[in-house]
């Protein structure tokens, strides 16, 4: 226990949910305050700016729907990453797994002669499969060859990105694109439909939410989930308990990579309707999802909401760029600030704060 002014700080192991939630909100508010000088520096009244952003993002259903649309790939990737991080597998590779899914879906959309009704389901299936395969390679590398997962997943992102580049410049270049590096547009049967007046491809959204629930159930209520948690928390104990390390990691990355692959399917079938330059498809969603998963503290359900938070930040950033004519880098600065504050206030969650009553202070226990 520790005394700070009139308060007593008491360590605790796990913070109750309302504290986690409250602290997170508090951090976002502080970050908003910290960004004030940036607005002032650009000659804007920060309060008016925030009000404008608020009106811009929440003002109408079409504009608010952008928050949801931007959150879709983040939900899918984020849920997958919470699972990977629970098993202490550092999957930095969602970016590449998104692209793998996009490639598979594009292949099915453009070249596979299947009945129209089967096309989209098949795209989702192959997309899941491709993401899963791209996610399983690092598991193989780690289990068989001892290759660090941070490196292998990171490097595989670059590899997949160049594979996409090769496809759109080479074998898959669309005959109707006049030589530009894009595939042809998908047939109508390979395009996802939107909620009215939006670009929200609801099928992917529904998949994301359903799979979040499934992963949450898997983690909390099944023997497999128990094994995943043990592998993550205490690999040695896992070994003693006879848990098959390789099998558990494989399952985890099958799901994690597969979900990212689904996100890729959603992007090409919902937004682009073609395969194009990789960075315009994956859009750093895979990297952002790392933060989404981390902020969700390993909870797949919470990842839905943290994904929405980042959807909101992206949409607000879009709005700042156009309406307030702020340079685009401001989104990066702002995201960085939000993150710094969010994690900095984590420490609050580990302490219970109470008003001190004099007789309760033990000098002996005030060590740091």
């Amino acid at each position, binding site marked *: 226990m520790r005394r700070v002014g009139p308060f007593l700080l008491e360590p605790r192991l796990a913070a109750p949910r309302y504290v986690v939630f409250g602290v997170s909100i508090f951090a976002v508010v502080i970050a908003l305050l910290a960004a004030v000088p940036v607005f002032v520096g650009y000659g804007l009244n920060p309060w008016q700016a925030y009000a404008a952003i608020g009106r811009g993002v929440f003002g109408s259903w079409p504009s608010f729907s952008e928050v949801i649309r931007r959150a879709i790939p983040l939900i899918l990737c984020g849920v997958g990453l919470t699972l990977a991080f629970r098993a202490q597998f550092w999957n930095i590779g969602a970016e590449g797994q998104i692209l793998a899914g996009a490639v598979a879906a594009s292949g099915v959309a453009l070249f596979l002669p299947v009945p129209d009704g089967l096309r989209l389901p098949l795209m989702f299936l192959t997309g899941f499969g491709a993401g899963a395969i791209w996610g399983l390679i690092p598991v193989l590398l780690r289990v068989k060859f001892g290759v660090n997962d941070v490196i292998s997943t990171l490097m595989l992102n670059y590899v997949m990105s160049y594979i996409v580049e090769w496809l759109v410049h080479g074998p898959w*270049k669309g005959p109707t694109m006049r030589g*530009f590096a894009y595939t042809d547009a998908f047939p109508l049967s390979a395009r996802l439909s939107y909620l009215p007046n939006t670009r929200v491809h609801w099928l992917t959204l529904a998949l994301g939410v359903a799979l979040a629930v499934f992963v949450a159930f898997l983690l909390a209520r099944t023997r497999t989930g128990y094994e995943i948690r043990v592998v993550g928390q205490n690999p040695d104990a896992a070994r003693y308990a006879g848990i098959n390390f390789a099998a558990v990691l494989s399952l985890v990355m099958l799901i994690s990579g597969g979900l990212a692959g689904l996100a890729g399917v959603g992007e090409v079938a919902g937004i682009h309707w073609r395969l194009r330059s990789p960075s315009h498809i994956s859009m750093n969603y895979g990297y952002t999802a790392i933060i989404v998963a981390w902020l969700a503290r390993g909870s797949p359900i919470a990842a839905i909401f943290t994904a929405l938070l980042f959807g909101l930040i992206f949409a607000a950033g*879009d709005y700042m760029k156009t309406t307030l004519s702020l340079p685009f880098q401001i989104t990066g600065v702002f995201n960085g600030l939000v993150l710094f504050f969010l994690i900095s206030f984590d420490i609050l969650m580990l302490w219970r704060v109470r008003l001190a009553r004099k007789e309760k202070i033990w000098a002996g226990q005030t060590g740091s």
Partner: protein
Amino acid sequence: MKRILAVVVTVVALGALAFSAEKIKAGFIYVGPIGDYGWTHAHDLARRIVDEKYDWLETVYVESVPEGEVETYIDQLVRQGCNVIFTTSFGFMDGTLAAAQRYPNVIFAHASGFKRNPNMATYMADFYQVYYLNGLMAGALTKTGKIGYVGAFPIPEVKRHLNAFTIGVREVNPNAEVHVRWIYEWFNPAAAKEATEALIAEGCDVFAFTEDSPTVVQVAAEKGLPSFGHYSPMYDFAPDYVVSGQIVHWEKIYEDFLLKVHNGVYTTKNLAHVDYWWLLSQGAVEVGAKPGMVINPKYEAALKNFVLNHPVFGRISVYDLVFTRLNQMADPGITFDPFQGPIYDRKGRLVVPEGMWMSYDSLITLEWAVVGVVGPWPGEP
């Protein structure tokens, strides 16, 4: 004098108009950051010039817009009251078209694409003639007979430029080769640097490129080798080594287009066939190390001393040849085109028959490599 007079007249005319006509709010959507010193930088420079020039015009811009997001940004610009929107990347094409159909009362113009609508025009300022002129000079300046070209992506636009450049080179120096390296990025200084170094190691001693930074110019200059600037004026980065280059003037197109919108010539009903393909003769592109300097004075002597026996002009120095060709192409009644048949590709096929010029469509879909190009050529037919 004539030009000054023309400007004065225009200004006066505009002043008169400004009272009568409505205000225009134009939105510009860029694919890259305006700090790239290439494509986006040039568009933004042009935006500021027109913004300054017309007092009935207000402009806004959005930079670094991913290709799939263009519709979102168009929505926002329209909500903000923009009535003219320019989208400046090929990848924005389908999104712009969809938005044009959704907002029939807004005028759209899309750079470098080929899809149009009654309220959506297309425009492009192309460099191929300028590359050809640069090629003439490069052919005269190489000592090793190998000229290096760092290309961004192997797409028709870059291939067209590379071919025009090579045609220029071989017109002066029939045995010279143009060695090409691809970096697969519009902007990546480190990649451009290593590609240039690789070309230097292969013996190339003159450089041209397509990448949005002055890297190639700087690297060549370090080794004391001449080069040609690309997109923005690059003379200042290596005053002793930038021979000439390609400079774009998007403002010429923007001025013309916006004025016509302002005057009611262009409406939301009649743009389906409006396609700007502006070249030297319209002033949308310029050959030079910096504006007004066609050839760096440091290289004038070398180019004047390089005299060849030209099939059309007889004995002529490269210096004179450059200006002769420039005049032929800058003249409104263009009397010369670099892609003038017969042209054979490097696989020996006749791609442009004797006496023919290439059509606009075949120019913008060009995939072959002309004789003299050495190196990988993805998508070669």
